[in-house]
């Protein structure tokens, strides 16, 4: 569980992030949406302990900046935007997710291997396990990275643009996967530009603009707040009907 209160971060260039309050409870998917440069990734990087913030960010009741590196990684998994394509195979990449829990000699045990297999199965990259990362598509690479943070087996997932490079069907499958992980008790925080997916499959939407949270609540509450067009430049509207991929659609403002 993530709990934020009075968090702020000021960049040298003048950008300031201010989040008065934000909670992502266990079993919930919380989506951060907003225009480019509104502070979504900055907030995730503060929560991941990468940027030095002021105020409070608690994970499982412990202040993030007070945690040691491995202790933090055991409680909180973070996947940044556009991770690279190092020269290794998919299985090795996913196995790196177990780093924080390995002992002094850093060799994997049976439980570690089982978690790696499960993560590859959940994300659909099991068939790709022996392929080089340079030999898979951009979407498959993204799924391999998501498998890596799932293998980390921490209670909270922070994902920055996890649907980048994924086709429409894979985006839907990713949303279902995140819901399933939340169903297993994880708190999932996702920064995304996929507004339809965010409103359709999240328990909570956090609408951001220029470093501030301008609306927060259930997708219905945020959609009805009247803040969406100003924050996103587009509207969002509930849609119903058989065969629709998402429950919300973008509209012109």
């Amino acid at each position: 569980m993530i709990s934020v209160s009075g968090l702020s971060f000021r960049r040298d260039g003048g950008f300031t992030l201010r989040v008065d309050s934000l909670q992502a409870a266990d079993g919930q998917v919380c989506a951060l949406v907003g225009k480019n440069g509104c502070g979504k990734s900055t907030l995730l990087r503060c929560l991941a302990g990468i940027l030095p913030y002021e105020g409070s960010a608690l994970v499982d009741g412990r202040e993030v900046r007070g945690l040691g590196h491995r202790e933090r990684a055991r409680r909180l998994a973070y996947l940044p935007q556009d991770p690279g394509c190092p020269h290794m195979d998919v299985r090795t990449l996913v196995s790196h997710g177990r780093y924080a829990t390995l002992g002094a000699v850093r060799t994997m045990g049976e439980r570690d291997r089982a978690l790696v297999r499960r993560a590859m199965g959940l994300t659909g990259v099991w068939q790709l396990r022996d392929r080089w990362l340079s030999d898979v598509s951009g979407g498959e690479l993204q799924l391999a990275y998501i498998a890596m943070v799932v293998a980390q087996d921490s209670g909270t997932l922070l994902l920055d643009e996890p649907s980048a490079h994924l086709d429409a069907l894979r985006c839907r499958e990713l949303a279902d996967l995140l819901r399933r992980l939340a169903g297993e008790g994880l708190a999932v925080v996702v920064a995304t530009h996929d507004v339809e997916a965010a409103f359709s499959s999240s328990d909570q939407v956090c609408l951001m603009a220029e470093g501030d949270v301008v609306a927060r609540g259930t997708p219905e509450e945020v959609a009805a707040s009247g803040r969406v067009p100003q924050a996103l430049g587009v509207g969002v509207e509930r849609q119903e009907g058989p065969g629709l991929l998402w429950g919300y659609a973008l509209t012109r403002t």
Partner: protein
Amino acid sequence: MSAGGGERTGTRCRVALALGVTVLVAVALASLVTGTAALGTLDSLNALGTLALGGDAGATASLVLLGVRAPRVVAGACCGAALACSGLLLQASLDNDLASPGVMGVNSGAGLFWLVAALLVPGHPVVRQGMAFVGALVSTLLVYLVSRRAGSSRGTVVLAGVAVSSLMGAGIDAVVTIWPESVADRVAFTLGGLSGQTFQRLALGVPAMAAALAAAVALGRGIDLLALGDETAHGLGLNVRASRLAAIVCAAVLAASAVSVCGLLGFVGLIVPNLVRMWASPGTRPGLALCAVWGASLLVACDLVARTVAFPYELPVGLVLSLLGAPFFISLLVRRGRGRRSHSVAAARGGDAR
């Protein structure tokens, strides 16, 4: 679908390691029984057999084999292994294939400080060894800090390395020009050489190499994570800054120990890690094992050529390394470039490659 990358890597590592050990044993034996002294190959073999069985091979044979050739072979193997492992650690920690003790100024930094120590505190090998380590560390950290301030791109790291290497190299030239007595054999030091080795001289460098190598193996999994990028590695629980610094310190100790024994041998730290990564693409731990074995084999083999090819003269081993290694390395780079281009064409025709 391509064949299994992980299984292929494991198999290739095992094959490369077995082959490397075989080559190392072969070149070490050849080096022991070949020489310019008045002890022919057959006599050397007989004497070696006698010594191995605990017998008395005679004063001359014992002196040549145990006092001259054996220390030289051990020095070559240890320095080759240390420089290759140092190169691998620098490449992995700085995420740059061109990083090596020679390019990054680690060797020249160690060399400059070693010379200054020899000049100021003559007759104290421990001080020289310590100063070589300080020089290697100063150079590496200078490159690291300059490249961080200048943007830390792959190109910047190498450019900063070239600049620091030039600076330290100029310092070495200045010292040996103004105080030629600071080094006994200027050519052997600046090009790298293995003549005149003794086990006493190795007694300081080899334990430092072994300690740095053991530390690097312990850090191996963390160094692997650096390839994923700093933020991803941080998210996985790695103390990125400490791990990178520790890898650099290990690389500096390895290079400094080698420089204090064999002078400024640069090329082995570039060529061997790249060959290992091209062939097997291993993680840091198996990569260190492969680099140690193949670095040792390459240097011992080149030293054998250096001793025999221009008999009765002896070439500096660094010269042989560059003459043989550079064309071989260039041909490998060209072949790899062709392979990548044909792969790109095939991928473009095949559609969804990336």
